[in-house]
């Protein structure tokens, strides 16, 4: 049966991994290639690179990072951040990325997702959704942009369905209420969207321990779980996460 995936996420600023990585035996804690190699050895199922570079000129650096990683690490690579034009996607795929994650551009220009899926295939188009809870009775989530500051009026479930209709091959769902809190995924929104669309859902935002990862799959019905800090700070290895999930009856690649 298909394994549930664990995806470490690396935030890259101008070619360097930020938010610190505390592997004891790593020479350079900011080197994306070295960190990617380490996660690969630990058994990561995929890697996601989030380009948080502010200036446009530095975006070329990300292409080189992807090229270097793809030459050494033979697992699927996703690149997000600043993907706004078909040419951005072409460059990342040519550099060795397998998928790109589209976030803000999808909100401002939904047709971009359609054009991207038609040109490159749904298999490489991930749409990233930043959702925030805006009502509890009934539960309702809305799409936010600008790091969770700007509401868009778009209902998160309807938006996810529309993005899949437009050709998204996967949904990367981040709860803006939980992102950075380390109190666990928003399981309700994860489950609601997972049950509403036929494509895989990657849960993101809020992971603080291994139980949170297992909950994302068992209760949130996520197909994959993404986490940054618990792996970056070497609190847990990817292998420990997988062993924990396997012990709870979740099929993982070990």
């Amino acid at each position, binding site marked *: 049966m298909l394994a*549930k995936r664990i995806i470490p996420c690396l935030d890259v600023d101008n070619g360097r991994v930020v938010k610190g990585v505390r592997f004891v035996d790593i020479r350079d804690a900011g080197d994306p290639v070295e960190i990617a190699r380490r996660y690969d050895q630990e058994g990561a199922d995929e890697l996601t690179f989030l380009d948080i570079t502010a200036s446009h000129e530095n975006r070329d650096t990300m292409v080189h990072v992807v090229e270097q990683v793809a030459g050494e690490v033979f*697992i699927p690579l996703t690149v997000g951040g600043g993907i706004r034009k078909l040419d951005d996607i072409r460059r990342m795929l040519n550099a060795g990325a397998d998928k790109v994650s589209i976030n803000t551009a999808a909100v401002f220009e939904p047709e971009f997702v359609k054009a991207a899926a038609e040109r490159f295939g749904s298999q490489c188009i991930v749409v990233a959704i930043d959702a925030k809870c805006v009502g509890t009775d009934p539960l309702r989530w809305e799409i936010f942009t600008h790091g969770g500051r700007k509401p868009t009026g778009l209902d998160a479930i309807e938006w996810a369905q529309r993005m899949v209709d437009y050709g998204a091959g996967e949904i990367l769902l981040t709860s803006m209420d939980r992102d950075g809190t380390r109190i666990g995924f928003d399981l309700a929104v994860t489950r609601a969207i997972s049950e509403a669309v036929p*494509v895989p859902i990657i849960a993101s935002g809020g992971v603080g321990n291994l139980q949170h990862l297992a909950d994302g799959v068992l209760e949130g019905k996520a197909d994959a779980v993404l986490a940054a800090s618990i792996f970056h700070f070497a609190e847990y290895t990817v292998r420990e996460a997988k062993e924990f999930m396997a012990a709870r009856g979740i099929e993982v690649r070990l």
Partner: protein
Amino acid sequence: MSTVAVIDYGMGNLHSIAKALQHADPSVIVTVTADRETILQADRVVFPGVGAIRDCMAALQRLRLDAVIREAAAEKPLLGICLGMQALLDSSEENGGTPCLGLIPGRVVRFAESTGNASYSQQELKVPHMGWNRVHPLHAHPVWDGLGRDRWFYFVHSYYAQPTDPRCIAATTDYPEPFASAVAKGNMIAVQFHPEKSQADGLRLLANFLRWQPEP
């Protein structure tokens, strides 16, 4: 010095495959090419592919590579990957029915989106079949050397091959029912998964392919 040609017909990024082949065997000369002579002169051929089958077949015909693949498959080891596997069958139901190369009898069909099968965690079947799944070889083949009965490989696809002759099925994978995740016939071995994205076991399979000498 052994050579391998990766057929480039504009369907997907081939750098990953070229890099993985080179990593699997640093002594082999890897060429990504659409040139007929280069393909026919290579010791081995890799036929990859990502995207829709109609575009794939149209590109092969436009570049006159369909005949080259037939000729190569008759003479030397050929590895089909993903869409490159599906294209070896007679036809695919994708894009309203698309004739393919007809090198392996059978057709390509889509996963049923919802099976209603309670054994599959009572969840609907997600399509595409995306992620890591186990591959079970059905009989000995040199490409499986050193790989056990149920290793993990990375898949991304919505359609799968149904060979007419069960002897052509080289391996199966469960989603949720068993489907042909690898097919083999003569010089041809083809896999639905992506060995170039399947970590150490994927590289092992590629290295095995680069060593494989089919019996005449």
